[in-house]
């Protein structure tokens, strides 16, 4: 994925676009990346496109209900939500680590990328270095996550990838994936 910026001759690198507007309120940019967009980028780019267009999710979907419940109830006493510039909203544990809680470990890579994005954002925009922890309370599993040169690159490539998906006039075509059935966009995506 390196060399990505070179292909964009004459255009600002999306990573810089994001950083400039995040660091300086005076810079207006319509391009924002939220934690959930990071997740969707890894899970399904069509889902990411729908999300960027305000397509409603089905809130009665059992998996959405379950995820919200785990998120609302797990580690309740020990974590607090921190909204930064209204752009990202990481959860902090008492010990200062950033925690990302997931109902199960089946989609662990997307959750890891989301967490890495928070760490990257805190480092680059706010100027604080944080450690992260990926937690699956229902499975009683936790895993430490740190920002390294390598995964920094992964985060920045994802930001560029998200920019491409979101800017496109059309979403990538539907493609059957093992987790489609549990997706909150399932019926919208597959209705035809």
């Amino acid at each position, binding site marked *: 994925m390196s060399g990505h910026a070179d292909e964009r001759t004459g255009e600002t690198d999306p990573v810089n676009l994001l950083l400039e507007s995040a660091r300086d309120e005076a810079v207006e940019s319509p391009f924002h990346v939220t934690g959930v967009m990071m997740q969707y980028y890894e899970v399904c780019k069509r889902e990411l496109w729908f999300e960027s*267009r*305000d*397509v*409603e999710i089905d809130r009665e979907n059992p998996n959405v209900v379950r995820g919200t419940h785990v998120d609302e109830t797990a580690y309740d006493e020990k974590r607090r939500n921190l909204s930064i510039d209204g752009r990202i909203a990481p959860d902090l544990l008492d010990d200062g680590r950033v925690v990302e809680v997931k109902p199960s470990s089946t989609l662990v890579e997307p959750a890891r990328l989301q967490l890495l994005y928070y760490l990257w954002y805190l480092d680059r925009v706010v100027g604080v270095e944080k450690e992260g922890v990926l937690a699956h309370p229902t499975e009683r599993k936790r895993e430490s996550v740190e920002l390294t040169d390598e995964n920094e690159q992964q985060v920045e490539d994802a930001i560029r990838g998200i920019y491409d998906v979101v800017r496109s*006039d*059309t*979403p990538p075509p539907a493609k059957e994936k093992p987790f489609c*059935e549990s997706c909150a966009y*399932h*019926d*919208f*995506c*597959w*209705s*035809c």
Partner: protein
Amino acid sequence: MNDNYHIFSDGRVERHNDTVRLVTDDDEKKYLPIENAEALFLHGQIDFNTRVISFLDDHGVAMHVFGWNDYYSGSIMPERGQTSGQTVVEQVRAYDDEAHRGKIAREIVDGSIHNMRANVTYYDNRDYDLDSTLDALDRRREEIQSAESVEEAMGVEASARRAYYGIFDQILPEGFVFGGRKYNPPNNKVNSLISFGNSLVYANIVSAIRATALDPTISYLHEPGERRYSLALDLADLFKPVLTDRVVFRLVNRGQLSDDDFDSEMNACLLTETGRETFSKEFEQTLDRTIEHPRLNRKVSYQYLLRVEAYKLKKHLLTGEPYESFERWW
């Protein structure tokens, strides 16, 4: 389950602890389990206050109100609806682009004719000879492909529906003379049944559209919203044969409705309270029927098909992926 509750008696709907209850004029109390409810349909004279509206709002339950003549008169919709400026912009863009609007309008008429035809075929296979109607509908279906304007598409739809309504007098038993569609007000029993059924289809589609961020007043086949949710009119055309007409045939042919279920005065014929109760019970059972959906890979209720139709149209408008209107496939 997305249940609809119909209230026919006069009285008061109120919040009581964490439920909604109906207190009728003769002081009978009934509780409505609204956790699973999609909407309340108020057919009687009902009082309610802001407390019950907030409560229904919290539970995402709509209230559809019907006037004295069975007509839909309005809805109180939950606030937590979907909104998306982008969706409305795309909706208007498609409306404003004559070619695009025409294409959607033709697609709706095409699906409507298919669904009328499905009913005709059903009876053609049961001792009736309806070949000429089938031919007529097939010709209309060919015509719709080349309809150049929306008015023309409307015309094709109207003449298809006329041909289709022509079989009603053959299918329905003696005592239920139809003689063509009349409304405002309906002039006989069959017309009053169709009017009532169609207004139920319409209200259910209003709810389905509300589940998306589509603007219910911007439509393609009908002219956009003059006092009515014209997008609901567009989509209702697709579902009338599957919902209203089948319920009418079923109830009448089984002899479940008698003269006592209708009130005739002047030139109007309207369903009585018990008539409307009988009709909506059968209608709700039809909405609850399920069918294996080939794309969604699971069984869905007829009612959910309305939601899927709103999704399809919205997806088409946002992504440009083709819109294929609902055609009964079973």
